[in-house]
């Protein structure tokens, strides 16, 4: 039984875990929060904690039951995990944030809240719309009002399809790591790790440390590309250290690193039995005759991460193409988006990892506090300056990594015509090429309209990059130039440029239970008369009903 709108709109949501409010950060019931933070990962948690320490009232919304986001995962209590830190890099920083969260008041943690849109209510007030409760008929709408928004919605794994990628046993590289961290389970016993990006080494290390045999890590770029950006590396010694740690762990477990190679086919009847690994040329084209079969029972694959920015795009925040062909939010030096009152931190501004996310979350909190008229103690100014320098240094490193791992333009050559590109709707590479060649599609959106690619459960998050690439690639010179222009000199995967006004699916019953609002645009003059056509209306003597046609 859905709650009535008024109940659902009570600011004291039944699922909220209220920390005791510090005297300086108390909120009258019904008053808006100073800050709504969307996403309780590294960026959001750091932002919420810092803002609360500065005296702001903060709502921290996240879909998950625990804080920590994609990176810091709390194992299910029933598993009795004694040392979650063993599976996590930099657990101490997370523990510190959790301790500070306990110490400060004023954070209302809204766990299990799936935010589907953020709407501007006035120049100084935002409404965050979420659903909570069981999926489907059990969903209830919740509206959280706030004077400022911090978008810390992280990233999702990017996939480039290849023949056989829909076989059971093929999992996302990030997904494999998440399964391990939160469920202490492995996707197989003999796991090939493949794709591109710095995450692969970390995933391989974790899997090997947890007892899996990892016959190969297959990386599409050559690590030599890092050398081109050695200045960024030198400025980020901890990243080098991280690489050495992973490297040595891989050596210890006898994991072979194959660079400039890709899994170009997966074999197996019911599930993965083996993969073919081929050498790639500089453009990621498979070199004929170089395929080698590697037996395995699972494949963990990922081609980097893509910022999860649907909510911000829905608000009209400007985006920029990243060097590896994703879309990230445009941010100023204070982490504010192009929409005043909306800040962002972490992967939404370009994928850069948990440490960068923490620094940005903190910086955003200081900026929000300043905007709302809360002055940070003088003693903090040196700290903020230090944070900025660290942020800038880590950002430049992140950009260097993105350039190094940008997919080459030749990757579609490993697709067969019958390879499913959109796995939700089972749309093949051949069908997409036909839509482009014969039916006049020139972009991912039109391909979607004509083939249904990207219309399924994942709403194109899984296939968007590949579809955009196939749509542009087959357009000939103009398309290719456009892609190169958008994705940077050495990237061929362009940002899909998708808009998803609903960031997550919402039950119709939950939408219907929303609090009634003002009519969007009441007719004010005969010229702007938008009243329904009806026999009674002299202006528009039409039918009693006027459906969309």
């Amino acid at each position, binding site marked *: 039984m*859905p709650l009535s709108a008024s109940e659902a709109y009570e600011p004291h949501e039944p699922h909220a875990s209220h920390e005791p409010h510090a005297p300086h950060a108390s909120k009258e019931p019904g008053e808006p929060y100073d800050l709504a933070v969307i996403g309780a990962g590294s960026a959001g948690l750091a932002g919420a904690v810092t803002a609360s320490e500065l005296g702001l009232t903060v709502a921290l919304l996240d879909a998950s039951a625990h804080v920590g986001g994609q990176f810091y995962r709390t194992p299910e209590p029933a598993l009795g995990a004694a040392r979650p830190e063993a599976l996590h890099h930099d657990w101490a920083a997370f523990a510190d944030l959790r301790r500070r969260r306990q110490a400060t008041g004023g954070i209302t943690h809204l766990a299990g809240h799936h935010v589907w849109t953020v*709407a501007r209510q006035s120049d100084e007030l935002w409404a965050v*719309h979420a659903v909570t409760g069981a*999926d*489907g*008929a*059990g969903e209830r709408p919740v509206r959280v009002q706030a004077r400022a928004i911090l978008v810390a919605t992280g990233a999702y794994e990017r996939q480039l399809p290849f023949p056989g990628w829909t076989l059971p046993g093929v999992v996302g590289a990030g997904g494999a790591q998440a399964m391990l961290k939160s469920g202490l389970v492995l996707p197989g016993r003999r796991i090939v790790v493949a794709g591109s990006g710095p995450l692969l080494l970390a995933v391989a290390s974790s899997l090997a440390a947890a007892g899996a045999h990892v016959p190969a890590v297959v990386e599409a770029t050559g690590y030599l590309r890092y050398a081109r950006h050695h200045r960024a590396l030198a400025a980020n010694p901890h990243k080098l250290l991280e690489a050495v740690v992973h490297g040595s762990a891989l050596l210890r477990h006898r994991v072979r690193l194959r660079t400039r190679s890709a899994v170009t086919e997966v074999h197996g009847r019911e599930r993965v039995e083996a993969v073919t690994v081929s050498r790639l040329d500089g453009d990621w084209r498979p070199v004929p005759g170089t395929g080698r079969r590697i037996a395995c029972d699972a494949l963990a694959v990922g081609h980097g991460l893509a910022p999860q920015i649907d909510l911000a795009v*829905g608000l*009209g925040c400007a985006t920029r193409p990243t060097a590896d062909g994703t879309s990230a939010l445009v941010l100023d030096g204070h982490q504010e988006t192009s929409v005043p009152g909306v800040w962002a931190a972490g992967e939404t501004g370009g994928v850069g990892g948990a440490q960068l996310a923490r620094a940005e979350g903190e910086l955003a909190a200081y900026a929000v506090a300043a905007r709302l008229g809360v002055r940070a103690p003088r003693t903090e100014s040196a700290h903020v300056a230090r944070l900025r320098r660290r942020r800038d240094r880590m950002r430049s490193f992140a950009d260097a990594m993105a350039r190094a791992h940008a997919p080459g333009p030749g990757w579609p050559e490993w697709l067969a015509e019958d390879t499913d590109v959109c796995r939700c709707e089972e749309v093949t590479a051949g069908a997409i090429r036909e839509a482009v060649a014969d*039916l*006049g*599609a*020139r*972009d991912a*959106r*039109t391909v979607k*309209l*004509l083939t*249904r690619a990207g*219309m399924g*459960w994942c*709403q194109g998050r899984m296939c968007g990059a590949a579809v955009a690439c196939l749509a542009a690639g087959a357009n000939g010179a*103009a398309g290719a130039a456009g892609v190169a222009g958008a994705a940077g000199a050495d990237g061929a995967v362009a940002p899909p440029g998708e808009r*998803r*006004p*609903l960031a997550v*699916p*919402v*039950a*119709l*019953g939950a*939408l*219907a239970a*929303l609090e*009634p*609002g*003002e*009519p*969007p*645009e009441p*007719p004010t003059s005969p*010229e*702007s008369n*938008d*009243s*329904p056509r*009806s*026999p*009674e*209306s002299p202006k*528009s*003597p*039409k*039918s*009693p*009903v*006027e*459906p*969309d*046609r």
Partner: protein
Amino acid sequence: MVGAGVVGAACAYYAARSGLRVTVLDRGPVAGGTTGAGEGNLLVSDKEPGPELDLALLSTRLWRELAEELPPQIEYEAKGGLVVASHEEGMTALRDFAAAQHKAGVTAEEIPADRLHDLEPHLAPGLAGGVHYPQDAQVMPALAAAHLLRAAGARLRLHLGEEVTGLLTGGSGEIQGVRTASGPVHAPYVVNAAGAWGGELARLAGVALPVLPRRGFVLVTEPLPRVVRRKVYAADYVADVASGSAALQTSAVVEGTPAGPVLIGASRERVGFDRTLSVEVLRRLAAQATALFPVLAGVRVMRTYPGFRPYLPDHLPAIGADPRVPGLLHACGHEGAGIGLAPATGLIVAQALAGREPPLDIAPFRPERFASAA
């Protein structure tokens, strides 16, 4: 032909079939504007007797022919429409309306309350009755446009991603073609099929055509087995309008699709080309749709998107030659009915280009009819 939406595609199709060589230009892809945002409804049920209904009845016949000629991918479905009334007052108005339509050639069958669930098993209980319109049908609009263009054959050239920046005219002001960033395209006739942007193209030609965008949102649910068989919508805001709450501009139209998702429209607002999500519109459409089909309450909306109907002040399209500019024709301003009215529009334009008599009286669609008001 300026515009590669369904109207431009239908005009190109019929013109090419009558032997003309046609170039279709669009600054975007095929079906990149309102066509791509439409539900693909081919309706007679919502039209009162008059010129638009005549156009719709002709189109209904033409769509049936096209469904034979074009590949099945256009998802033509003669599914029929069902308009329901929730109380007796609304049913009376609906009955009168259907009787008038019947005289104009519409097939309309009254469905008493106790038979509604034979047609739509999941309808809410307690409705007063309805009218079944078997002529209502549906296509997948983007695929319909794409396949119309493809079926036009070798006489058609498609210039996508090319924006028309001006019109070429001769010494006495007659049309000689269009200008684009990549060069001129010469033709003695230019057809304005630019949909919601038709007013802009008219301005390039130096004439006024007051096309304005009228925004609507469509909600798309997760795929379902066939829960909704027809196009179902409620008629009972006749009474709402009479009671003065005319500000209500949402009327949920609920329908299933061959691919599985249920589509829910239709809202109407004049807010320019603003694509910002309106939470209030979503609330109203969801409330109305679940009132019709309570079973949908637990069904999730996967996505929503806005579209911009090309709106003209008298709710009728502008079709045919513009006497103010020799060689210029218009085929735009169909508001929310462009998919349905496309074939009849295309046929009228093709006939006009060939110097033949139109298939019906096109005086009500005269493009210059707003000139005196402007």
